[in-house]
Structures are given as C-alpha cells and as structure tokens.
C-alpha cells in the first residue's frame, strides 16, 4: 500500500525558511510512523534528520508532531492515522536544530530546576527502603514518565512563556514530593510555588492528551496546587 508523507524540513544554516517535502512510499501492514521515517531515511532521502533509539516506547527520543498532535513515532501505527497524507513536524515551542531534531536544552533545564533526584537528610539506611502499596500507588503513574517532551511542548502556557517549568518538570516534582522515601519535598515546593511554576498551569489538558504513557498530568499538577494552597495557611 502506498502512503504519502508531508514532512517538515529545515536546516537553519542552509535554508532561509522551513518547507514541507512530500514522500510517497510503499508501506507494509503493521508499520509505525518510525518505520516509515526509517524507510525514507535509509532508502529514499538520507538527509532527513530525526531522533530515534529504542523503537519500543521507552526511550522518549522520537516524540514529534504527527498530524498536528504530539506523539511518539514508534508508538503510532500508520493505519490509525486515516487514509490521507500524514503530516510530520518537530515538537513545537523549541528551537529547531534540523528537521525533526529540536534543541531539548530548555526542557531539561526546567527539569533540573525541580531537583529530579532523591534527597535524603537523615542517615542513609543500611538496606533498601520499603513502601506500602498505598504509598507506591500515589506515585506509580507519575513515575512512568519517559521524558519525551510531548507534554511540555504541547502546552500553550509553555509556548507563550519558555520560563514556565512545564508539565514534565511539575510531574517530576510531584513524583518526588509525594514519594514517602524522599525528604526534599519542602524545598521542591518552594521552587515550584512560583508564578512561573505551578500557577502558570491553567488546566488546558493538552499535556494529558499528548502523553504517550497516558499519564493524567493535569491531575497531578492540580494535586500540587492543592498542596501549595494548603501550605499557605
């Protein structure tokens, strides 16, 4: 079966303006968008640039905008995309390095701000720290994040203001603040309780719709907002 792909092309040091290039290729049943990109890259046009690694939804490298929605190319079956031309673009809101390869530095800088690692002030335990199933349930979903950036780059608040921490960083903050083993909750809440932190979220839900791991990110941001308000009194 032949399918048409309309792919965003831009090389800032060579092209004056971004443009779209169309490729028509023969696809096989069961191909994902990543399979098609690989086919184009390997057999049709070797200049096409995009990130990929695990091709099994766990590394988070191949997040891109497919038919106007942020998704993982390796998770998106071509047959779920209807019969029309498939439009592929880089994640919005980040500087473009080449084609689908965007500069993720602003994204990871925001992540670093919330201290995305365990903080322990009491003496380190001799053995592993156990959690009850209830304690684990609190953070189970949030800990599934693969840091692909689909959520943050789908957020209109982030588009308007790159200083906004964004849903991925806030979700990471939630994951540690609500972890029974972590002791850095207070300092993290100090950091995210900021006009460019928690309060820039206006519950647009784009992040939740974009998340390839189906994490209800908005819900966790709201839980953080509740915690911050309760902490005011």
């Amino acid at each position, binding site marked *: 079966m032949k399918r048409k792909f309309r792919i965003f092309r831009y090389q800032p040091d060579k092209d004056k303006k971004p443009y779209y290039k169309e490729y028509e290729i023969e696809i096989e049943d069961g191909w994902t968008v990543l399979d098609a990109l690989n086919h184009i890259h390997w057999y049709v046009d070797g200049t096409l640039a995009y990130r990929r690694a695990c091709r099994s939804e766990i590394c988070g490298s191949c997040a891109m905008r497919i038919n106007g929605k942020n998704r993982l190319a390796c998770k998106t079956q071509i047959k779920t995309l209807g019969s029309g031309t498939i439009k592929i673009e880089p994640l919005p809101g980040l500087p473009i390095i080449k084609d689908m390869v965007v500069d993720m530095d602003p994204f990871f800088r925001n992540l670093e701000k919330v201290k995305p690692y365990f903080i322990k002030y009491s003496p380190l335990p001799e053995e592993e720290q156990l959690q009850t199933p209830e304690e684990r349930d609190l953070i189970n979903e949030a800990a599934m994040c693969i840091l692909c950036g689909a959520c943050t780059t789908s957020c209109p608040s982030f588009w308007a*203001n790159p200083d906004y921490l964004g849903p991925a960083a806030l979700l990471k903050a939630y994951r540690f603040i609500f972890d029974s083993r972590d002791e850095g909750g207070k300092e993290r*809440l100090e950091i995210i*309780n*900021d*006009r460019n932190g*928690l309060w820039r979220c206006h519950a647009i839900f784009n992040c939740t719709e974009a998340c390839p791991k189906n994490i209800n990110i908005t819900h966790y941001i709201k839980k953080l*907002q509740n915690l911050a*308000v309760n902490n005011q009194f």
Partner: protein
Amino acid sequence: MIASKSLIKRNRGALAWFFQRITAIYLFVFLIGHFVMMHFAGSGEVTYETVAPRLSSPLWKAGDLLFLIFALYHGINGLWQVLEDYVRNRGLRLFLFAVLLTLAVILFTVGVVTIFSVKS
C-alpha cells in the same frame, strides 16, 4: 512527603489562584439567585416599585457589595493572569496593571455609590 503546615508565606500566586476559585463559587451561587429572583420568584417586572424595596434592605446591600468586590476581583485577576502569560515586556506589564487597577477603582466607586444611594 510534606506533613507539617507552615505559616503564611510570601504570595507567589497560590492565594490568587485560591481566591479566584472562592470568588467563582460566590459568583455562581449569586447568578443562580439572580435567575430565580428575576424569572421565577418575583413578578418579573423591573420597575422602581419592585426593585427599590429590595435594594434598600441591608442584607441585600451586603450581598450586592460582596458581589461587587468578588466580581471585580475575579475579572481583574483573570485579566491579570492572561497579561502575565502573554506580555513579556516589564514596562508594558506595569502600565497595563496600572490600567487594570484604575479601572477596578473606578468601577468599585460607581458600584458602591449605586448600592448605597438607594434609601429605604
């Protein structure tokens, strides 16, 4: 985990977010009350004879005053949030914030005069 609660901290948006919701609840209840009053409970006529007695009662005045304050807070704060999202220039921000505050003061004054000028 955060267990203990601390005293009131520097306002960084948490209280603005909280009061936006509190005022929203009041506005919603007030709106329902307004609909009931205007379309179901009373005669439906808007004349001086029907409105003046209501407006002259202290309870009504208090409710209206609260509505005035809450509606202004809700609207001005909402606009301010939008400006914070999209206006990056500090000077322009400051100017627009001043415009908003002036607008709020004028509207509040007009509202207060309206509410308290009705005598029983």
